[in-house]
């Protein structure tokens, strides 16, 4: 089934450890995004990539980094995790951004991260 795959689905992590959340899409979408979801705050954009080889900062980028070496993969790295990064992380993709015909975001099922 085409879509977005995130891994791991859940992880408990000690503060100070490095962690990479993986995201792979098989829809050949140009744009990819990482959001974090926190109760009462909705989804907040961490980083995005309009196309392979480019990335940009979203609303809450501090403490996170991303790379986009190819179209399909968009990993999110926490270099040194802190408890405030406890959240549910969603990867998403879109064909060509909102200016395109669809504008729809397709979401993965999320990665629940707990930092102790």
């Amino acid at each position, binding site marked *: 089934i085409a879509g977005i795959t995130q891994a791991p689905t859940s992880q408990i992590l000690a503060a100070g450890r490095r962690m990479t959340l993986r995201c792979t899409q098989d829809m050949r979408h140009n744009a990819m995004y990482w959001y974090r979801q926190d109760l009462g705050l909705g*989804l907040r954009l961490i980083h995005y990539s309009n196309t392979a080889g480019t990335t940009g900062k979203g609303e809450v980028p501090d403490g996170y980094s991303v790379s986009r070496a190819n179209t399909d993969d968009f990993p999110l790295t926490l270099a040194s995790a802190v408890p405030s990064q406890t959240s549910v992380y969603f990867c998403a993709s879109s064909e060509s951004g*909102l200016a395109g015909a669809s504008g729809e975001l397709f*979401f993965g099922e999320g990665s629940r991260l707990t930092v102790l």
Partner: protein
Amino acid sequence: AQSVTQPDIHITVSEGASLELRCNYSYGATPYLFWYVQSPGQGLQLLLKYFSGDTLVQGIKGFEAEFKRSQSSFNLRKPSVHWSDAAEYFCAVGAIDGNKLVFGAGTILRVKS
């Protein structure tokens, strides 16, 4: 910068009753507007979207939304709620010249039988 307000954190309706979820946005130009639904443990799924044209848009699962520029609103409606509609609903606004969506905090819908 754009922003979205969903005034209701929780809403409870009886099965078969009508539903309206409120969404107000702030944006200086004509926005792209979306409603997404999230079932427990799942990612978000698009219900409907407004780009231009008819201000009343139809979506999946019997939902509709009306864009009212004068009120900066994009409220979601359904004439008769089903128990399977229990979920969290997110309104989102995007800039025409960008490709990033800003989401509201969400409204949790509970359906009682």
